[in-house]
C-alpha cells in the first residue's frame, strides 16, 4: 500500500485533474462507480475563485495517438464547489485532492484557506499554468514566481500542497526545485503540452482558441523524461503522468522515480482505465519483464 505525503492509498494510480468528473460519471454509471472506483485518490477539476463557463467550442481535436483540448477550466467557482460538489465528492471511497487556480496570490490564498478548512479534503494541488495578473508571467514557467507563490501559500495549511508542473519550459527541474524550496510537499507532472492543428476542411486552426494542450500516448516519452529530470533534482515525491495507458506505461514512471502515477486521456477511452492499469501494474512491474 503506497503512502503519499502521509495519505494511505490502495494502489499508486490516481486521475489527472480535469479528466474525470466523478459526479457526472456516477449519474451515468450509477453506484457501480463507487463500488469499483478506478483511482486510489480522486483529483478534482481545477476550481477558480469565480465560476467559469469554459471556452467557446470547438474544444477537442484528435491527433495521432492523442488529442488536443482547449476546455478553459469550466467550474462552479469556489462557493459553488464547496456548496454543491464537495459534499458529493466526499462520498467517493478514496481520499480527495482538490485542484485550485487563481491569477493572483490573494485569490490563491483565499482558495487554499477555504479548501484546506474542509475535513473532506486530504490535499491540494496548485494549478500554476496560469498568468499572474500582476507580473503577466505564467507562474509555473518561472522558478521565482513559483517559489514566491509557494512561500505565500505554505503558511496557510498543514495539508499537503502539490504543485502541478507545466512541460512548456526549458528546465522543469528548476521550477520543481523552486516549488520544493517554497515548501511544496510534492510535484505532479506533466500538464499538457502547448500544441495546435489546422482543420483541413476550413484551413483554419482546429480549436476555436487557436491552440490547446496535447495529451495521450503521443506525449508519454516527453513526460517520462521530464519526470526523470525533476526526480533527479528534488527530494519531494512526484506524481508522474502523460499518456499512461497500461500497466507497463505506469511502470516506466514508477521506475523513473515517481511515487504515484496519474491517468488522464486513457480514461476517455476506457472509463475503468485506472483500475485496469493498477491491476496490470502488479503483474508488469513486480512479476514479469516490462512489455514495452
Amino acid at each position: 500500500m503506497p503512502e503519499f505525503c502521509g495519505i494511505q492509498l490502495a494502489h499508486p494510480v490516481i486521475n489527472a485533474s480535469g479528466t474525470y468528473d466523478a459526479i457526472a460519471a456516477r449519474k451515468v454509471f450509477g453506484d457501480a462507480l463507487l463500488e469499483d472506483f478506478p483511482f486510489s485518490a480522486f483529483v478534482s477539476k481545477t476550481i477558480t475563485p469565480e465560476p467559469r463557463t469554459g471556452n467557446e467550442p470547438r474544444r477537442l481535436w484528435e491527433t495521432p495517438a492523442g488529442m488536443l483540448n482547449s476546455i478553459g477550466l469550466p467550474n462552479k467557482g469556489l462557493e459553488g464547489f464547496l456548496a454543491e460538489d464537495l459534499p458529493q465528492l466526499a462520498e467517493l471511497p478514496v481520499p480527495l485532492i482538490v485542484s485550485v487556480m487563481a491569477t493572483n496570490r490573494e485569490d490563491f490564498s483565499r482558495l487554499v484557506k477555504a479548501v484546506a478548512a474542509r475535513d473532506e479534503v486530504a490535499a491540494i494541488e496548485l494549478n500554476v499554468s496560469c498568468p499572474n495578473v500582476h507580473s503577466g508571467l505564467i507562474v509555473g514557467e518561472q522558478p521565482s514566481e513559483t517559489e514566491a507563490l509557494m512561500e505565500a501559500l505554505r503558511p496557510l495549511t498543514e495539508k499537503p500542497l502539490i504543485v502541478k508542473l507545466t512541460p512548456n519550459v526549458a528546465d522543469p527541474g528548476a521550477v520543481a526545485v523552486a516549488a520544493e524550496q517554497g515548501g511544496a510537499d510534492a510535484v505532479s507532472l506533466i500538464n499538457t503540452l502547448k500544441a495546435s492543428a489546422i482543420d483541413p476542411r476550413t484551413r483554419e486552426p482546429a480549436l476555436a482558441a487557436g491552440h490547446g494542450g496535447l495529451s495521450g500516448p503521443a506525449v508519454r516519452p516527453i513526460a517520462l523524461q521530464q519526470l526523470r529530470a525533476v526526480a533527479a533534482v528534488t527530494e519531494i515525491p512526484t506524481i508522474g503522468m502523460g499518456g499512461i495507458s497500461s500497466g507497463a506505461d505506469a511502470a516506466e514512471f514508477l521506475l523513473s522515480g515517481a511515487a504515484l502515477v496519474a491517468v488522464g486521456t486513457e480514461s476517455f477511452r476506457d472509463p475503468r482505465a485506472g483500475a485496469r492499469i493498477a491491476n496490470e501494474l502488479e503483474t508488469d512491474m513486480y512479476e514479469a519483464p516490462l512489455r514495452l
Partner: protein
Amino acid sequence: MTAPFGRRLCEVAANEASGGYRIFSLLDREGPAPQPGQFYMLASAHGWGEEGGHPFLPRAISVAEAAPAKNGVRLDFLVEGVGPGTDRLCELEAGEGVWVTGPLGNSFSTPKQVNPGAAGAILVGGGIGIAPMAIWRRHLVEQGIPLRVLLGFRNQEHSGGLDELFCSGDSLCPDVRLASEDGHSGHHGYVTDLLAAMLAGDDASSAVVYSCGPPAMLEAVRSLCAEAGVACELAMESPMACGFGACFGCAVPKVDGGYMRLCVDGPVVRGDAVAEVAHA
C-alpha cells in the same frame, strides 16, 4: 437504467452495405436495451490507432435499432465512412470485437411529455441522422402515437438505411416521405421544405417535431419550429472524447448563456434550449 460501468467487448454479428452507408450489428450481452436517442462510444478492439495513430478516441454513434437477441440485445448502427474512425467501423467483420460503452445520454420525450396538448409527432431525419429516427419511430408506433416521418438525403451516394430501417415488407412505410437534393427520390429539394409545408397546415400546433441530421438541417428545423410555435427535440452531435461527462469537449451553447455538455445533458436537446445549431 444506468449503463454498465466501463467499456465492454461486444461481438460484431453482421455488417452489410445499405446504399452508401453500412449497417452493423453488435451483440451486447451486458447492457440494458437503449432508449431512442441514446448513443454508444465505439472503438474496434483491433486496428484502432494502429495506422498513423488514428483513430485514437472512441466514436459516439447513435443507435438505429435494438432488439432482444439470444443472451442479450442486438444493437444496430448506421454509419457512413467520413474519417478514420467511421471508416474503421465500416470495415468491421462478423466475429470481430468492438469496445462498447453505453447506452449513454438522454432520450426523446413523448409528444405529451413535451406538450400536454400534443397529439402526434413529426420526425425529420437527414442523411446518417435518420438512424435515431428509426428506433424512435418504432417506439411511437408501438405506443399508437400518430406520426409522419420526413427523411432527406443529399444524393444517391450519400443515402441508405431505408430498406432496413423504414420499410415494411418490400415497400417504404406509409408514414414516410422522402426528399433528395439531387431529386433521385421523393421531393426534389430539402427535407425541411416538406417540414415547412407540414408546419403551415392547420393541425401543426398539435404536433411535436423530432429531428436528427447535419447541423445546417437541424438549424433549419429549429428555426422553422420556433417560427411556427411548434416544440421540437433535436438529437445533436458534437466532438466528444469520452461520452460520460469527463472531457468537457462536447460543449453546446445554451440559449440562456454558458454551455451544456452534450453527452450528459443531451444528445437530445429541446429546440428552445439552444441559441442556434452551430456547425460541429
